[in-house]
């Protein structure tokens, strides 16, 4: 989403070959109200910064990332976070460690036994 209108979204999606396979909704925020609410509005330019948020079906904000204008995002990392959130939603006692990539990779169950023993826990599986 950006502050462009839905008409510009349509024109861009039809014009730009890189967007030919885009299937998600392109949101329009011409007033900047949503940009403001999500803290991505750059007051100096009126434009939205490259902010990314993941929200659960219950409406809880789970992840937040912000890049400046000149740095694009890593979609693999976004997909990793979505996968992790879905897994965690079904297993609230688990934690997804650093470098986790997909279902089947080792997850951790934080407990008193694991204090100082994360390396051993990461080797299980």
């Amino acid at each position: 989403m950006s502050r462009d209108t839905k008409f510009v979204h349509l024109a861009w999606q039809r014009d730009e070959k890189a967007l030919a396979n885009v299937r998600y909704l392109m949101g329009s925020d011409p007033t900047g109200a949503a940009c403001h609410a999500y803290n991505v509005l750059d007051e100096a330019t009126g434009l939205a910064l490259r902010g990314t948020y993941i929200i659960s079906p219950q409406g809880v904000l789970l992840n937040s990332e912000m890049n400046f204008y000149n740095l694009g995002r890593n979609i693999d990392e976004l997909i990793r976070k979505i996968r992790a959130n879905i897994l965690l939603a079904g297993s609230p006692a688990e934690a997804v460690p650093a470098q986790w990539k997909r279902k089947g990779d080792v997850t951790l169950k934080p407990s008193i036994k694991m204090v100082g023993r994360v390396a051993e826990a990461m080797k299980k599986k």
Partner: protein
Amino acid sequence: MSECCGSLRVGQKAPDFLLETFDPAKQVFGEVSLKKLMAAKKWTVLFFYPADFTFV
């Protein structure tokens, strides 16, 4: 959306939004809100960028 600023944190309730949309899959205009997405039990990714016709 009027509750103000800088209080956005992970683990908290996400602010609601209501946006006009273009749906490239169906090539139609529409509307989306967080309420509607929640009612449909969907996960939501909000992906902000500065402007159309720029790189993302």
